[in-house]
């Protein structure tokens, strides 16, 4: 994808976005709501025409009408907020969408992949949110696609259902599928993705593996001493980075190289030694915060 852009009147939704995917990787397109993720992915799915730039999907140009039909045959898509047909069963829905392709995978094989054997003959409307999303995943895979687009596949799910969806995506990865995942969940990108591109206001602000991004933009590791209270500050050694008191009593100390051992020795004989202590590694949340000055909420909004 090279310098891709999409404008709606004077509004620029996607502004000169460029990146590439390697075969067999899970790529996470990470950013808050309204950053341009879905617009970008829908250009790649041939649902929207780009205003500028070029996008090549599986060696076909999304801008060429003749290439679009070839792309559609080869990609699998789970749209954001997708629901299958309410009154058809899991299996019937898979067959329904499978029939849109010249060849389709065996529905039972897909049902097994997404772990829905027990729900095979249940109508879609009777399923929980997590199970519905797994049906969506099966439907996205029904044509044995070379590239799978999953647009916010876990949005709105409870933590357990999210984990179940992650498990299915991990299985896809093991099968060698190339997965294009859009998400606003930083932990999801960190857990699943081989490569991440962070998009904000229609522009990519960082790309790399999760570790590369964290190392480059995540900031320092932090020592956290739980429930130490304001009194706990006086037991800390001097010469360390300025500690912060958070959450009504937790002490956060940014760690420079080699500092951790000194601090632990210094507090070893103090009441702080009896507190819960952890070393917190920076996350993609910190990367986003450090790069934009904002955090992304559970709902995907920036704050």
């Amino acid at each position, binding site marked *: 994808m090279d310098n891709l852009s999409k404008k709606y009147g004077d509004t620029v939704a996607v502004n000169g976005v460029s990146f590439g995917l390697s075969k067999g990787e899970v790529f996470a397109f990470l950013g808050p709501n309204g950053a341009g993720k879905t617009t970008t992915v829908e250009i790649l799915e041939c649902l929207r025409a780009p205003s500028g730039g070029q996008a090549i999907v599986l060696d076909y140009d999304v801008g060429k009408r003749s290439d679009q039909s070839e792309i*559609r045959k080869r990609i699998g898509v789970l749209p954001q907020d997708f629901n299958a047909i309410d009154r058809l069963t899991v299996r019937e829905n898979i067959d329904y969408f499978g029939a849109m392709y010249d060849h389709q995978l065996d529905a039972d094989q897909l049902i097994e992949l997404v772990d829905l054997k027990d729900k095979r003959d249940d109508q879609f409307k009777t399923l929980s949110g997590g199970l519905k999303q797994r049906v969506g995943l099966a439907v996205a895979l029904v044509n044995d696609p070379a590239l799978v687009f999953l647009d916010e596949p876990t949005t709105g799910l409870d933590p357990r259902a999210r984990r179940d969806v992650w498990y299915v995506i991990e299985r896809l990865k093991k099968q060698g599928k190339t997965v294009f995942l859009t998400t606003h969940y930083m932990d999801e990108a960190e857990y699943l993705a081989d490569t991440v591109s962070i998009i904000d206001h229609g522009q990519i602000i960082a790309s790399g593996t999760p570790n590369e991004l964290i190392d480059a933009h995540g900031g320092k590791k932090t020592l956290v001493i739980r429930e130490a209270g304001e009194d706990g500050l006086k037991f800390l050694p001097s010469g360390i980075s300025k500690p912060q008191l958070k959450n009504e009593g937790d002490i956060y100390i940014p760690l420079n190289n080699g500092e951790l051992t000194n601090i632990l020795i210094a507090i070893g004989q103090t009441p702080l030694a009896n507190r819960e202590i952890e070393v917190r590694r920076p996350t993609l949340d910190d990367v986003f915060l450090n790069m934009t000055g904002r955090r992304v909420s559970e709902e995907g909004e920036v704050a």
Partner: protein
Amino acid sequence: MSRVYTIVKGHVKAWLRSKSTIFWTLAFPILLIVLFGAIFGTGNTRFDLYVQNQDLTANAPTPASQGYVAALNYTGAFNIQTVPAEMSNPVSYVRDDAQLHNRGQRLVVIPIGFQNNLTSSKPASIQLYIDQSDQASSSLSGVITAVTASYAASLSSSTVSLSVQQVPIVTHNTRYIDFFIPGVIGMTLLTSGVFGAVNTNGRYRELKIIKKLATTPLSKIEWILGMVGYQMFLAALSIAVILLFGRFVFGVTATIDIYAIGLVVAAALLFPGIGMVLANFVKDADGAEAAANAITFPMMFLAGTFWPTETMPTVLKVIANYLPLTYINNGLRDAMIYLEPAQALTNTIIALGLAGFFIMLGSVLMSWKEE
């Protein structure tokens, strides 16, 4: 074509599992037929008979003509309705009034000079206007002939010659239920077509099903064909149920000819086309459904589903002429009940023209890809 078949099959399966849509498509029309059939009845054992007495003296019926009407009434065989003497076209009056009040279209005219002829021993006659296809025609004319002969005899003048002059009139000697059944078919095609299209194109868009389908090799035209195929299935099924019910419960005999089929095909294109146009203009699914209600309900009442448009005030008659359902209803009646191929053809052509226009407009407006 296998994709189109899959879409039709998928919709049919989903439809079969929805009790509410089955109710609205099959049970509701049957319920209406039962209710309206019970309220307006299917006729009674008396023959409806319109009488126009033109034989007046000083603006009052002559004694002889009055006596003749009394003789008809005395038999108890007739439900007599009076046509005003000044009505220049009594046949037309009877046609409208009978349809309005769900009566048989039969007319006896007592001509001017009836009494004079009788008293001067000249031959006198009354005119009976009756449609030969009227199942009651033979028994009814028999009763009237007998009444007339007996009335002539009662005048105790051997020179009196009084005869019944039978004049054929083309009427639709139909009961209300005969009139109503094609209307119910039209109404069912309207509601299932408009709401079906609004649902699939509004609700399915909201559920991202259309977006998902647009990422597959399925084309927009295949999707529309699938939807129309589904509507054809529903139309055929509901028509079969309505006609069988009408036949066995109310004895309604309807003819399925090329025009009836043409009208059903037109309706299966026309009403989903209207629904697609609505779904396009009102993107929100609930709003589109409200818009569908706002359009279908007035159309149902104004387009001659429940009563003849001829009986409505002039302004509503004009509106009815602009409603697509009017042509479907009229055409279905002409084809299935009145057996008037020329009028059925006209309505079929208009309906097919409207169908072509709306399905094309709906298809062009329907956004398959995103904006």
